[in-house]
């Protein structure tokens, strides 16, 4: 669309958006827990981005498999200046592995949640807006998924597909999409009641356009909260699967795998092997939950006038 410039520059055209954004920042600043979550989150993200510069040791990849340099003379050494988080039973530097592990955790979290959300948004929006047998069919399928506990279902799927990171992610997507479908559907049912939807119909917009231009954009904000918290939950579940031996191979920079491997040594006094990756999981999951919780308040329409 060519624009006739009658109304001034970018700042002017986006004045309202800028105001909204500033207001969001203000609300965020007012909530200490949200800020704590946000800072922790930024910390994890920065670690993930700058892992190659932060970690003293780096893996090599052979045929997609991760190999870490090791020093047999340093086996199971406790935290020291040289190895901040100590080493494992082959002499790998645990600090480097925990740092690199953040990349994998975030990767799993984001991909799984985004894919699950996309599926959920599409199905949920059609289910809620179109109604009738489409709705009925989609909802019954969701119900079937809800009948199994999530972790058990994920375990079964991973077990069937075979262990490995990719398969864990597929399993988690399968487990997660029905939740989004349901939330979005509920949201759509309430958005649908707004008169602007009817106004769009009165103006002659097609159903497809109404769903994508009006219904979905107005249904998404509430699920952002859920999505943020789910990032943490997905990471936690993925770690759980890895802990059960269904995730990545041994001696890879995967927090779940590391906790799992170190567990056997815990009682023998080698506490650091499990503890540091465990802490990393804890911090990340907590960060997403705190931030998600705060986001709920910030996006609350009552606060937003």
């Amino acid at each position, binding site marked *: *669309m*060519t*624009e*006739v410039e*009658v*109304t001034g520059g970018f700042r*002017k*055209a*986006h*004045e*309202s958006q800028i105001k*909204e954004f500033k207001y969001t920042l203000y609300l965020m600043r007012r909530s200490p827990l949200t800020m704590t979550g946000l800072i922790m989150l930024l910390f994890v993200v920065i670690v993930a981005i700058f892992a190659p510069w932060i970690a003293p040791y780096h893996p090599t990849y052979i045929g997609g498999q991760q190999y870490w340099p090791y020093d047999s003379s340093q086996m199971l050494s406790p935290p020291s200046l040289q190895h901040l988080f100590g080493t494992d039973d082959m002499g790998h530097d645990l600090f480097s592995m925990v740092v690199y592990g953040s990349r994998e955790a975030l990767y799993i979290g984001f991909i799984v949640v985004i894919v699950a959300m996309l599926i959920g948004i599409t199905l949920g929006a059609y289910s809620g807006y179109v109604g009738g047998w489409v709705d009925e069919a989609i909802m019954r399928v969701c119900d079937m998924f809800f009948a199994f506990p999530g972790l058990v279902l994920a375990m079964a799927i991973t077990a069937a597909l075979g262990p490995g990171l990719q398969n864990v992610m597929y399993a988690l997507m399968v487990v997660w999409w029905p939740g989004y479908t349901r939330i979005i559907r509920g949201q759509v049912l309430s958005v649908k009641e*707004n*008169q*602007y939807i*009817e*106004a*769009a*119909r*009165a*103006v*002659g*917009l097609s159903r497809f*356009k109404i769903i994508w*231009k*009006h219904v979905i*954009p*107005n249904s998404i904000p509430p699920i952002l909260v859920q999505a943020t918290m789910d990032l943490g939950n997905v990471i936690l579940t993925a770690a759980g699967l890895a802990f059960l031996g269904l995730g990545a191979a041994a001696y890879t920079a995967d927090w779940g795998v590391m906790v799992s491997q170190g567990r056997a040594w815990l009682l023998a006094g080698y506490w650091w092997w499990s503890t540091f990756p465990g802490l990393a999981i804890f911090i990340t999951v907590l960060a997403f939950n705190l931030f998600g919780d705060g986001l709920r308040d910030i996006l609350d329409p009552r606060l937003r*006038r």
Partner: protein
Amino acid sequence: MSEDAILQIYGLKKYFPVKGGFFGKVIAHVKAVDGVSLEIKRGETLGIVGESGCGKTTLGRTILRLIKADDGMIFFNAPPDVQDRIRELVGRKDEKSKRELEEIRKKYDLNRKNDKEIRPYRRKMQIVFQDPQSSLDPRMTVKKILAEPLLTHKIVPSHKVESKIIELLELVGLKKEHLHRFPHEFSGGQRQRIGIARAISLNPDFIVLDEPTSALDVSVQAQILNLLKQLQRDLKLTYMFITHDLSVARHMAHRIGVMYVGKLVELAPAEDLFNDPLHPYTKLLLEAIPIPDPTKRKKERKLFTGEVPSAVNPPKGCRFHPRCEYFMAGVCDKLEPPLVEVKKNHYVACHLYTKG
């Protein structure tokens, strides 16, 4: 009655299912609109008044085919000779007439058209909603809101959209500074102006105004009412003005229809309705309106009893009979009174006037 009618409706019915029980079975129906027939003349304002839930909005939405009527005919913009023919055919029972009417319906009845076929008509009939808060998408700027209908129907080439929008804004008393603002940054009256701009953007012939001022303050209401009147003059619009406020109806409408529980009980020229209300319900309504003059306080405070009955199980016979002071046992609770012309252009549905 051979004036040019922009809209003719006959026996319009809309029943909403009421679901209940374990499996969401339909257990009853809300008879929101239950057999309404009327005509709207080109260029006039037809007021529809009635209390909450009597089916005013539903009537407007079914006419615009935002919801599909369960029964009845809606002829919009039929050629004058066809209009006359329809009027002649509607009452007739013989096979030949029925077949002829069927042919006309296939061509002109909105109720016979599917969603795709309806779309071109959308340009010609529009609606302004009651609630300025929820009738504008909160995530869209004014520009996007107004561009949508223009682009959908390709009213102007896309490089002229912005200047057309500015023209529309000025027409409804807003400024081009408002172009990039979000709905929540406007007052109720301004939002309603945006809603009006959206409705007139497609150069419609006919607009349903569903309580366009009931959410507004009186001083702003006056601005909007004046604006609507001015637009009607300038753009040659026909209005169906829905309101629960009789004084607003009087100010705006040429003719007024009074609805009660899904039915039209009285239809008359505005002056006539106020000077000589015939239906007992209309009388009650007029009695209940407070007058903005303390010296005209009613000496005797009338006891208004009862409430509007549910449209799920409306009373048998005349729906007003449980509240009516002229109730005639054996007649009013048995027979449904038809809408008949009692005086010139003055229609009433009440047994007081049908007995002769």
